[in-house]
């Protein structure tokens, strides 16, 4: 407080300034987009599955927005690698804040969870669990 900013500890700023796995895939198994209209955050996530169609092999993301949303996408892209779709499905908000390593204030939670939501919705669309979802929105 007053000196530094807890929510923006080194890790988040680092991922924001040098995002990992940033870009778009040629031929993803599935892809999905999302936005957070009030922030203007946008995220696109491309996922490549293993041959077992269950394990996440590789993830890229692209997008624009606040540090929280973009760093969260960057960290998540690393974290998802090797995860099963079931494990992705089970990721909750606590997992994301733990991953970020900081306390996220209530009004910024929707920035933090946007990437996870996009990945989860993408997997659901891929499985046919939902239809007709053009774009994921985390606006509350």
């Amino acid at each position, binding site marked *: *407080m*007053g000196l*530094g*900013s*807890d*929510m*923006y500890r080194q890790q988040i*700023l680092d991922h*924001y*300034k040098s995002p990992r796995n940033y870009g778009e895939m040629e031929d993803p198994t599935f892809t999905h987009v999302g936005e957070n209209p*009030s*922030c*203007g955050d946008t995220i696109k996530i491309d996922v490549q599955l293993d041959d077992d169609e269950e394990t996440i092999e590789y993830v890229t993301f692209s997008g624009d*927005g*606040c*540090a*929280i949303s973009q760093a969260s996408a960057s960290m998540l892209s690393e974290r998802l690698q090797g995860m099963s779709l079931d494990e992705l499905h089970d990721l909750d908000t606590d997992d994301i804040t733990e991953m970020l390593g900081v306390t996220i*204030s*209530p009004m*910024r939670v929707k*920035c933090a969870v946007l990437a996870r939501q996009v990945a989860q919705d993408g997997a659901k669309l891929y499985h046919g669990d939902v239809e007709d979802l053009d774009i994921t929105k985390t606006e509350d």
Partner: protein
Amino acid sequence: MSTQQTYPIDVESIRQDFPILSRKVGGDVTVAGESENDTEPLVYLDNGATSQTPTQVVDAIVDYYYGYNANVHRGIHQLSQEASVAYEEAHDRVAAFINANGREEIVFTKNTTEAMNLVAYAWGLEALGPGDSVVATEMEHHASLVTWQQICKRTGAEIRYIQIDDEGRLDMDHAAELIDDSTRMVSAVHVSNTLGTVNPVGDLCDLAHEHDAFAFIDGAQAVPTRPVDVKAIDADFYAFSGHKMLGPTGIGVLYGKEEILEAMNPYLYGGEMIRSVTYEDSTWEDLPWKFEAGTPVIEQGIALHAAIDYLDDIGMENVQKHEELLAEYAYDELSAYDDVTIYGPPGDDRGGLVAFNVDGVHAHDLSSILNDYAVAIRAGDHCTQPLHDKLGAPASARASFYIYNTTDEIDRLVEAVDAARQLFA
């Protein structure tokens, strides 16, 4: 940065009337009010969103509930008479404050937004149709923009937007082009809550009247910050909110010229707004009660009266001078940095707010970091999304000032902005 500043108003003594200004922040945001871990003195620069509330206004609320709380108008008992007199006098007070003719022209609503919708529903739905146009501005607040846009969609009328120039001022040539004989309503914001532009609303009203159109002026940012004379402007409708001018939430004001309100159908139906009712049909009360259905905003009207007394004591000319002083100071301090973009007209020609962006720092991140430095500003689109699209920014940070703010507080803002800049460098 700031040396000993002299203000057009007695800021130090004004601050004493606002207990919240001594509160500290920094701790748990899910606990309402100051708590243990709140250690940093608050710098409140979000007055464009809502103003703080002085003891005089809160006392008026407490006095009402402890002294003469009752439903108004129809009651013969003493409490009801006291409340009725106070509630009706609140209309008179508002009328005098903006130079309306009297309480007939003053309708209490819930907020500016409802005032806008009242006219859109009671007049617009009836009057507008294909071939008609409503002319708004590119800098309208959603309260007016979305309302007229949707009413136009429902009625088949067309909505047109007066362009802004590079400095965020209305292009009055474009206005003269857009407003034509198809135009039934010109709806314009008096002071932009994003650009700080003070619009030539009198000229817009004249343009409207030349084409027999009505003019609705959104004074949500104007009435709190400068003297407003609805007759001099010649507005047909004029709206503002109590909560932005030291008053409580839950009250807005719709001013309308008496003969226009008289000719309009009612909006909300129910008690208090009728003259007589049978199972088959109803007739309506006189103005302004025709437009105030149900138990009205009694506490809020009485508190708004107290807020206006407070502002009038300071003098609205002085309030305006103070606003201008702070706006110019903030503009100068912030624009000294090359990576800062400020939206709207220059510092010496704007209302008391500055919306800006810092290169490489998203406005929401900026606001979060400023919050860590106890500086409260707003970040977002300030309910002017289309304008932000036009400005090419999804969001901006906005510092907005009021009678209790100082240049020292702006220095703290600038320091915190600098800290954010460093963090993101």
